[in-house]
């Protein structure tokens, strides 16, 4: 059976330090405004009355997301220029030399993975550091995480230790079948029930 590589994110360990985001940007020399890996800060809650007292139930967690090399990649379906293809180990690759810069992939991807390089005027995205993998090194984001909150590997093996990617603000995994597993933060259920919000959309360039 063919291996399908993907990421696993441990949101119980992630502190939102953004070392992964920075390491990715540094490794691929990404221009200002382009973040192949982004750390979203999700929070909610507030003050609530409990009898005569007021208590707060504020909660927050961080979620690091890049391209999830989906099994049903919508970017590949909508790209008119055939700039996307499936590579070895199920990786979704993007060839900037074929890209028109139409942005259709960016509209379609529910993870915000394809990003416009405004200087080159083409889309770019995470390739799971395929050159590093070939050289026997881990992806830059995985290597940089001080808390080992990001892992990579065969998605079936990761599925043994991590759950499905059903955590706010991620979309229904049935849409694109992402190669992503998540260990859910203890407040993930509250986020789903009360509608947690991403607080740093501007910071991650949305």
């Amino acid at each position, binding site marked *: 059976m063919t291996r399908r590589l993907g990421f696993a994110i441990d949101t119980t360990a992630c502190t939102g330090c953004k070392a992964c985001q920075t390491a990715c940007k540094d490794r691929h020399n990404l221009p200002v405004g382009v973040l192949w890996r982004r750390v979203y800060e999700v929070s909610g809650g507030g003050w609530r009355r409990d009898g005569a007292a007021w208590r707060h139930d504020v909660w927050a967690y961080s979620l690091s997301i890049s391209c999830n090399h989906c099994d049903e990649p919508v970017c590949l379906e*909508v790209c*008119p*220029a055939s700039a996307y293809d499936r590579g070895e180990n199920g990786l979704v690759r993007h060839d900037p030399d074929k*890209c*028109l810069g139409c*942005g259709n992939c960016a*509209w*379609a991807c529910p993870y915000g993975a394809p990003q*416009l390089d405004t200087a080159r005027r083409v889309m770019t995205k995470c390739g799971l550091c395929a050159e590093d993998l070939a050289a026997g090194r881990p992806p830059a984001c995985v290597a940089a995480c001080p808390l080992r909150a990001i892992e990579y590997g065969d998605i079936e093996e990761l599925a043994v230790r991590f759950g499905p990617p059903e955590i706010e603000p*991620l979309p229904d995994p049935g849409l694109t079948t992402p190669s992503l597993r998540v260990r859910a933060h203890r407040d993930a259920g509250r986020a789903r029930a009360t509608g947690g919000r991403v607080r740093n959309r501007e910071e991650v360039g949305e």
Partner: protein
Amino acid sequence: MKGDWSLVSFTVLGQAAVGASWGLAASWALLAARADREIAGTATAWGLATVPVLAALAIAVSLFHLGRPVRAWRAVANLRVSWLSREVLAAGVFFVASAAVVLVPGPGRAPFLALAGVAGAVLVVTMARTYRMRTVPAWDSWTTGAFFLQSALASGGAVTALVLALRSPHEQAGLAQVCATAVGALALVAGPLLFSRWRRTLARHDGAAHETADRLSRDHARVRARWVGAIMAVALLLAAPVLAAPWRVAALAAAVTLAFTAELLGRILFYRARVRTGL
């Protein structure tokens, strides 16, 4: 909305060209059957010449949203799976067929008229499929296709009515003009009504669809302006037949302008509904 103006213009102009080609082809066929082919040719010649011009303008303006317009030829490289590739091909075939209608004289133009009509229908369908992304709930419904068809009929009806008034002194053109006016007027009113229904449907859902409804309900100015434009265009279309000749043409020209404006406003609202599910 950054960069969206070129796609707003491309879709509205492209659909207007398709609608005009349908209206003028139908008028040509009607006149050829009721009068003769010469009268049919004279009455529709000027209008048929505007169709490839509109199509060319639409295609040209669409290049402005590309980061790399010089690679635009690659847009047909993924016909196997991408609806956008198919849309680009359909736009090209429609342009060539509608240009052939103008260039080929006499009876030889009939097959090209039919080809342009079919290619136009394919263009509207592929446009709708392109926008029906499963990750954009507001667009992923039958209403996207209905909006595009309605826009083609509204603009096309108005343009056909104007063309027939300009170049057709023949009585036989009366029926074609009545049909074009009726189709244009109905489609113009259907646009804002369909939009209201769409917005109410989105509001009943949660997540991205609900956020879309919120966003659209805050855009009162454009929604009202579209209603005003559509109603004024319909009033002018309906009033034109009872006016004296020079005033009739002026009224129809104003109706076409207002119809285009109403459709542009509707399309801007459609693009504002691009709220993706997820991140």
